[in-house]
């Protein structure tokens, strides 16, 4: 993945700042709660939601199971339609390919459609290093870019900003990048949108190269699909002479017909709309209209390794609707930045440690960034059992085990820093496997209960720093039972 997030602290540390930032907490709470309620209504309108969810899951699983076949078919269809397909195994290779293609056109700036894949590989930074300026055209993405910030939500990258903050960013930064913000810009939605529109229009009319991602790629026709709300993406897809699309290999679906499912579930899950306002599809090139040159860069970057994992591979079904973020109580408090990746929230917690591996501090902490409440699984339109994958990845962190990295099977060692926990877990298991030992411990605790502090030392401090422990009872239940009901004595 991109170098942007290297050196991120582990999740609990990164979340600490967000939890204690009342503006951020307020912005996030307001935004996620509003969309949560709307989504619920939009989903409830469809009587066949359960069937659609199951169909989406099946289509994705089928496509992933036969990924090799569908990708080859896609390449053939795209080529037949006049496009060129490039294969990129990792971020560096993808960035090199895109930079090379832009240079071939002789241009030094590109217009961008909002895209997770290009953020994942850090394309903007890589292009900048080659002297190419990349302009984001999605409104929220523009706010993030102008603010020299990082996106904190899949769908609404600037969810952590309020209107006042956005006004300040526009007033300060727009002139550096092109048309300045109007004098005396107010922080109303209308004025902010108009400032962005004028700023962007200038760029749309000038640009010769567009760079996009895609929500879906149809193998049978070689068609790419982008859904969006603003129409800025469509400008980038149709106005430039050259279009370069960078897309993760898991985005392929077999047939045009499959879109009927996702074009219903995606908008309702993400923006709570019945239909997204702009659905753009493009197939290779045509003489009369749109870009004259089309390149498709197919990105692996850890995806085939993820596919090799029987439990974890379901994360590749994700259609990036962001519903799981909006219902996640942890995301709501920690904010998107704490996840150290362009993929925040529950999906980020299972995707990043698979795409990047669990070796770094942040990636080893992500599978624990959940209370396993299950709200994410409940809303996911392609039924990804996120809690199941989280627990599976926790196992990988603490116990190691076999994984596939860069196409080769390797056996991971347990991550550092879990030795004490592992010992405690073993000891607890030993005692819990022996009712007699458990009972002796309970009695000892009850007898000495007046000596127990209400706060704990060591790792327990994290608990008792903000919560009081319950008082121990005089007598554990099993002693009461035996006193009242008699019965067997101590076991084993």
């Amino acid at each position, binding site marked *: 993945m991109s170098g942007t997030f290297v050196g991120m602290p582990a999740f*609990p540390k990164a979340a600490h700042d967000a939890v204690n930032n009342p503006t951020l907490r307020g912005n996030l709470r307001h935004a996620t709660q509003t969309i949560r309620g709307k989504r619920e209504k939009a989903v409830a309108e469809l009587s066949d939601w359960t069937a659609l969810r199951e169909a989406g899951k099946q289509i994705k699983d089928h496509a992933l199971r036969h990924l090799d076949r569908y990708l080859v078919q896609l390449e053939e269809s795209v080529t037949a339609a006049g496009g060129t397909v490039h294969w990129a195994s990792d971020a560096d290779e993808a960035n090199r390919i895109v930079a090379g293609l832009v240079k071939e056109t002789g241009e030094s700036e590109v217009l961008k459609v909002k895209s997770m894949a290009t953020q994942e590989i850090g394309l903007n930074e890589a292009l900048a290093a080659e002297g190419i300026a990349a302009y984001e055209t999605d409104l929220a993405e523009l706010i993030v870019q102008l603010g020299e910030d990082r996106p904190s939500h899949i769908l609404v990258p600037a969810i952590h900003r309020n209107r006042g903050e956005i006004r300040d960013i526009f007033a300060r930064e727009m002139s550096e990048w092109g048309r300045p913000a109007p004098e005396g810009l107010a922080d109303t939605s209308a004025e902010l949108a108009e400032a962005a529109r004028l700023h962007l229009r200038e760029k749309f009319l000038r640009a010769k190269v567009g760079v996009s991602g895609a929500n879906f790629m149809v193998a049978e026709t070689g068609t790419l699909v982008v859904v969006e709300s603003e129409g800025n993406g469509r400008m980038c897809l149709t106005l430039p002479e050259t279009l370069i699309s960078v897309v993760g290999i898991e985005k392929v679906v077999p047939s045009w017909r499959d879109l009927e499912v996702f074009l219903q579930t995606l908008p309702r899950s993400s923006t709570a709309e019945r239909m997204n306002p702009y659905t753009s599809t493009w197939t290779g090139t045509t003489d009369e209209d749109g870009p004259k040159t089309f390149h498709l860069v197919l990105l692996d970057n850890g995806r085939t390794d993820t596919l090799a994992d029987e439990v974890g591979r379901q994360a590749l079904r994700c259609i990036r609707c962001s519903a799981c973020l909006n219902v996640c109580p942890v995301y709501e408090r920690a904010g998107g930045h704490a996840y150290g990746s362009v993929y925040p929230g529950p999906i980020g917690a299972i995707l990043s440690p698979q795409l990047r591996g669990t070796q770094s501090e942040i990636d080893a902490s992500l599978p624990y960034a959940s*209370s396993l409440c299950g*709200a994410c699984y409940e809303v996911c339109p392609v039924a990804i059992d996120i809690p199941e994958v989280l627990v599976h990845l926790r196992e990988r962190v603490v116990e190691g085990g076999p994984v596939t990295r860069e196409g080769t099977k390797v056996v991971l060692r347990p991550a550092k820093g879990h030795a004490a926990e592992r010992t405690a877990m073993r000891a607890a298991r030993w005692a819990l496997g*022996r009712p007699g030992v458990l009972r002796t411990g309970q009695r000892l605790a009850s007898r000495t209960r007046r000596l127990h502090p209400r706060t704990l030392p060591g790792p327990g401090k*994290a608990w008792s*720093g*903000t*919560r009081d422990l319950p008082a121990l009872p005089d*007598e554990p239940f099993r002693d009461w039972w035996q006193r009242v009901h008699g019965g067997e*004595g101590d076991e084993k």
Partner: protein
Amino acid sequence: MRVALFLTCVNDTLYPGTGRAVVKILTGLGVEVDFPMAQTCCGQAHYNTGYRHQAEPLARHFSEVFTGYEAIVTPSGSCGAMVRELYPRMGERARAEGRGNTLAAALEPVVPKTYEFTEFLVDVLGVTDVGAYYPHTVTYHPTCHGMRSLGLGDRPLRLLRAVKGMELVELPGADECCGFGGTFALKNSDVSAAMGADKVRNAEATGAEVLCAADNSCLMHIGGTMTRLRTGIRPVHIAEILASTEEEPAV
């Protein structure tokens, strides 16, 4: 009917009153209750923290202790979900890893017979009015595993609505996690505490005297936050409310 009470290690050690309440209610309904003394822990904390292999012997122990009963009843949604939802998965995984069928076979007789307490009352005994009397204002927090894994639905609420003398008030944001999540509370204590504080504030806003739930682990977290934030509201397990009568009222 002869059922086994699976009390869970947390309740046995810290909340024996919940166990006594369950025994009182079930016995009152004519059920013969046994407490197998060899029971310990379902292994949920191990499993959910990533120590699946440590949880397996505990699951085997569970099946040894509880095989042979007509039903196994537990006053904990999350431990119930561990047995019903995750034990079968453990069996499948063992099979997939080439360790044969033995774990799955051992768990087969206990998994479908395990019921969460309110589910057992409503679905198996067909009772919603247990004759309880509890003169307090109560708000109900549906815990995540009870609600999403076991699908308890409105069963606890139907039981609560039949309690005499009680006023039941709705909890805003009821279906949001309280932030306990087992070792999550330790590993991500800042976020966990923030979630707990929001839950407590929502409960306080209802004006209720009591917040009730069907799981003492969540109540421990919520209750610890309540006393720390010095709210007047108290956590009480639903079994203790249902066991309260005019002759023997619970506080």
